[in-house]
């Protein structure tokens, strides 16, 4: 069992490094849609990381958190997109 914990732990840590790379785009993105794209990428990577860590630490509750996080981040993305569209229509 202990060898399987290690095999899921290392890709999880690599995903955290990719989140860090995407965070640079979130900080220095020139326009607003650039930052939204970076946020969407970070959300997907966080969901994949939650699934991997849930398998690494043998706890099913992490996977349930990942399901809820996927649906809520989808709603947040749609709301931000709707807000950008509406703000430009008023101008």
């Amino acid at each position, binding site marked *: 069992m202990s*060898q*399987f914990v290690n*095999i*899921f732990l290392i*890709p999880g840590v*690599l*995903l955290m490094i*990719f*989140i860090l*790379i*995407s965070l*640079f*785009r979130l900080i220095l993105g020139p*326009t*607003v*849609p*650039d930052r*939204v*794209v*970076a946020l*969407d*990428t970070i959300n*997907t*990577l966080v*969901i*994949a990381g939650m*699934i*991997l860590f*849930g*398998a690494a630490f*043998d706890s*099913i509750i992490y*996977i*349930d958190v*990942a*399901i809820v996080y*996927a*649906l809520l*981040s*989808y709603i947040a*993305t*749609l709301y*931000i*997109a*709707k807000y*950008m*569209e509406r*703000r*430009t*229509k008023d101008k």
Partner: protein
Amino acid sequence: MFIILSILLIIGIFFNGLGSIGLMRFPDVYTRLHAATKCTTFGSIFTSISVIVFGFYFWKVSGDSKYGVLALHTIVALACLIITNPTGAHAIARAAHRSGVMPKQAVIDDLKEADLE
């Protein structure tokens, strides 16, 4: 078993890394969206499939139904991810085009001539 899990995880991590590197390398919003969304969705599918294979294999070997529950919940999370991710990308691209962000080196823009309300 160890080899199958390693291959699935390496494919998934490789494509996730390509997605986040493409986010840094590409010049404008639409190419970044193209790279990031497709690559991270594909990579997340493969890392989740490795967890599903792990869960079903240990369910069969040890007879503990905890691993079966792990695999089934991962399938639900994967279905949510596959359905919601391209829809969110479509919404972002549509909002970016409507808020006036043009692609760099755009050759032709068919949406500009279309009558948007």
